[in-house]
């Protein structure tokens, strides 16, 4: 492998080109900073574009910022940090109008204002939307404007390591997927905006790319991850594939039925019914299935019925969803109910950051020159459960806000000059070399399948100490087997065999954090449900978990206080 690796110099390197990455990049570039955005896809292929239903803001006259805050905090099962939530909700209206001014194509009311629809756990219709493809118009718009301003993008480059020395990140090591040529990107500030980690589960709504690379890269340097046990299972994934049917389906009036034709949400959330938050609805569906009232070939799904909306409303407001059900189930939601079941959807946990996007080194200290935003980070505005249409808002707002925070740190000369030598690429080079030479007997696809299946079964919607210990053992087994993998593709050209192996390594590492966090958290809160501890325990666990992995892969956990505020924790019923 070439030892003369080129070193590119930038003020800021941003990894990930979804909504958070692009909004930070635009902010910094406009203010005269030299920025590079690195993505393993093309920016327009980022998973932000898959978000369907909407983006929240208290825009209308009969809504209030405080209500948005309260709904978000209650939705988070009080684990959300109230200072961050207050900032995000306060800035939400401006953020939506800002992206609209840049060209986002929102659906409109008759008076020309941005239309809003009801969403789960929200006390007002608050989700601004573009039919059922809101993420797509937002991603396109923020990318287009960053591109218009002249931000430099490195497409199809894979970032495989950070350069972390003396408590500071000095840049990243990456290779060009097209020819496997490495480069060092040296920078005063480095920002991760790489998205979520839902691919660890068998049934999930995530893109193939959502392998949580950044989390394991960070963790392997002994830096912490926060609240990893909180994985959102979205109630309405298409049965089998897990492909998402947006919450807009329930927002527009979709009704859930079991095999006995009962509208079962009456039992679990008599007031909010289908519009209870996602964790509540997912558990209700799973319960119906476990008690034998599921439908479909494997009796593992329930029905969502939208037929009463009629063709006109479905075609105007949910055309993509109809198309998805036709493609993946062969069912037309205009004519018949469709089959859905919970699907791993969103990662509430991630790289711990403070309200300005600075990455934590410990509960009290920060890494110099290192920032994160969007789904890969944990700021935490979603706490134990994210409300629908708050993730696009988080990505767009905190992406921009983190860009501003980096700008401030650069201008205030708070960031020392990066110091990089060729040897800093050694870890990354060795990893690739080792994997390329693998001639063992284990197949990547097989280990990944076993990982996903076991995570869904034993660390999924319902968890117990027993199931989690079983999963811990399974992870140890898979990790050992990963040492004995086989790579058939030895080529340097677009080697996706190699890439899938690197990504699997990342998935295995961060899965340990999910399981460890779930084991330690002996309570049920938001998306984390322990059958052996079915109640929330504020005395012990109104705290974030901050977990570290040592060189031997052993995880230790500390607790970080939640930033509370004007909304006191209360029992959470809907």
């Amino acid at each position: 492998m070439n030892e003369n690796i080129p070193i590119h110099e930038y003020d800021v390197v941003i990894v990930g080109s979804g909504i958070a990455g692009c909004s930070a990049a635009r902010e910094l570039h406009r203010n005269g900073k030299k920025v590079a955005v690195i993505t393993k896809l093309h920016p327009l292929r980022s998973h932000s574009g898959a978000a369907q239903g909407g983006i929240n803001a208290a825009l209308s006259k009969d809504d209030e910022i405080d209500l948005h805050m309260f709904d978000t905090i209650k939705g988070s099962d009080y684990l959300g940090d109230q200072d961050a939530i207050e900032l995000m909700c306060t800035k939400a209206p401006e953020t939506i109008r800002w992206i609209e001014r840049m060209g986002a194509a929102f659906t409109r009311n008759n008076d020309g204002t941005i239309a809003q629809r009801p969403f789960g756990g929200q006390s007002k219709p608050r989700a601004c939307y573009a039919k059922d493809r809101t993420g797509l118009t937002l991603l396109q718009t923020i990318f287009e404007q960053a591109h218009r301003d002249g931000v430099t993008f490195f497409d199809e480059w894979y970032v495989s390591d950070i350069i972390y020395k003396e408590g500071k990140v000095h840049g990243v090591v990456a290779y060009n997927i097209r020819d496997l040529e490495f480069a060092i990107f040296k920078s005063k500030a480095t920002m991760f905006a790489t998205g979520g980690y839902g691919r660890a589960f068998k049934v999930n709504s995530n893109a193939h790319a959502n392998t949580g690379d950044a989390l394991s890269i960070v963790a392997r340097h002994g830096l912490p991850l926060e609240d990893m046990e909180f994985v959102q299972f979205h109630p309405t994934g298409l049965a089998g594939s897990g492909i998402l049917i947006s919450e807009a389906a329930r927002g527009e009036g979709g009704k859930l039925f079991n095999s006995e034709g009962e509208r079962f949400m009456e039992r679990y959330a008599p007031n909010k019914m289908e519009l209870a938050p996602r964790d509540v609805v997912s558990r209700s569906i799973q319960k119906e299935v476990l008690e034998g009232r599921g439908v479909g070939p494997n009796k593992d799904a329930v029905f969502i019925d939208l037929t009463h909306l009629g063709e006109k409303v479905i075609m105007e407001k949910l055309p993509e969803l109809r198309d998805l059900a036709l493609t993946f189930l062969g069912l037309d939601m205009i004519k018949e109910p469709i089959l859905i079941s919970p699907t791993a959807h969103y990662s509430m946990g991630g790289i711990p950051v403070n309200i300005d996007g600075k990455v934590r080194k410990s509960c009290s200290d920060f890494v110099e020159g290192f920032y994160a935003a969007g789904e890969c980070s944990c700021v935490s505005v979603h706490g134990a459960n994210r409300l629908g249409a708050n993730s696009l808002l988080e990505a767009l707002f905190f992406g921009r806000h983190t860009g501003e925070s980096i700008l401030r740190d650069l201008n205030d000369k708070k960031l020392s000059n990066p110091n990089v030598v060729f040897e800093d690429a050694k870890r990354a080079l060795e990893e690739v070399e080792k994997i390329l030479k693998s001639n063992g007997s284990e197949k990547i696809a097989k280990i990944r399948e076993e990982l996903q299946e076991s995570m869904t079964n034993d660390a999924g919607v319902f968890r117990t100490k027993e199931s989690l210990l079983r999963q811990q053992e399974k992870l140890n087994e898979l990790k050992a087997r990963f040492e004995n993998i086989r790579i058939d593709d030895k080529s340097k050209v677009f080697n996706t065999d190699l890439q899938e192996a690197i990504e699997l390594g990342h998935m295995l590492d961060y899965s340990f954090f999910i399981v460890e966090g779930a084991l330690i958290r002996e309570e049920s809160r938001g998306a984390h449900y322990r059958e052996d501890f079915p109640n929330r325990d504020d005395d012990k666990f109104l705290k974030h978990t901050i977990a570290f992995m040592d060189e031997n892969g052993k995880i230790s956990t500390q607790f970080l206080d939640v930033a509370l505020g004007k909304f006191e924790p209360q029992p959470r019923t809907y």
Partner: protein
Amino acid sequence: MADAIETKKIYLKVFRFNHETDYLPYYKNYEVVVSQDEVMLDVLNKIKWEFDSTFSYRRSCRHGICGSCGIKVNNRATLACKERVFDMIELFGNEMTIEPQSRKRVIKDMVIDKKDFWDKYNAVKPYMITAVDEHPDSENYMSPHDYENLKEADICVQCGNCYYACPSVEVNEDYLGPASLAKTYRFNFDTRDEAKIDRLDTVNDLGSGIWDCVKCYECAEACPKGVNPIEKITYLHTQTFQEGRAKSNVATRHAVGFKTSINMHGFLDEGMLVAYSEGIGVLKHLPEAFKMFRKGKIAMPWNMPKSKNLDEIKKLIKSSSSAKF
């Protein structure tokens, strides 16, 4: 959905090539069992995960929104994650040839070099041009009608299916192609954009722009998202006239010739149309003109029949014209 999941076997002939190691491409055969709920991307995954992990293709979202996995099945453009395998079997039977979108641009297997595609995307200023209020306290007002007037152009995912299926692109490397022209429409018909004229001047050159569309509808067929690029190209034709940006060339004169002829006769005078479009160049068509005349396909100008409702037709043209020529 049936109560049990049905499966079928398909026989695949798959294009393989690695530009680093192979002198020529070749095809490899695979037999794959597929089920009714699977899409073509599942087939690609099976080849990679069960048979040959060196097989390479782009993919990400797996539900038709990221635009990564465009391929050709039996020479028909498709987005692999949006195409049901059973629909393909119904269309083609159980033997399928899987190829990249464009064989001459291949890097490896299904992965092609998209540089020319992205260059042309960049050429049309594919972003809204307006002064951005960085801290607005209100949004632009936009009527539902103006929003609908984007005609789904905003859902293009840049998969490139239309571009690589376009026969004009195939023979003319300067032609911008359907995807970037649909993108031009996306902004030129947005009431908030301020660079309409600039973009029109970019896309209405003969040889590279809207007039080189041959109206074959391949792009509409190839699009997995229903963007219908040719419809958008047609709107751009009209917009160049409406905005007075049409340059006098064979294509624009051809368009004007239609109107002139109908306005004069109520019928299309095919002979004069060619003369109108090509000016003195019409002389090279004399042999065909003579043959057409003998078959009664064209008439001498003084013998050109007139529609008996010519007055009505003139009124219709007047009331429906949106552009000055």
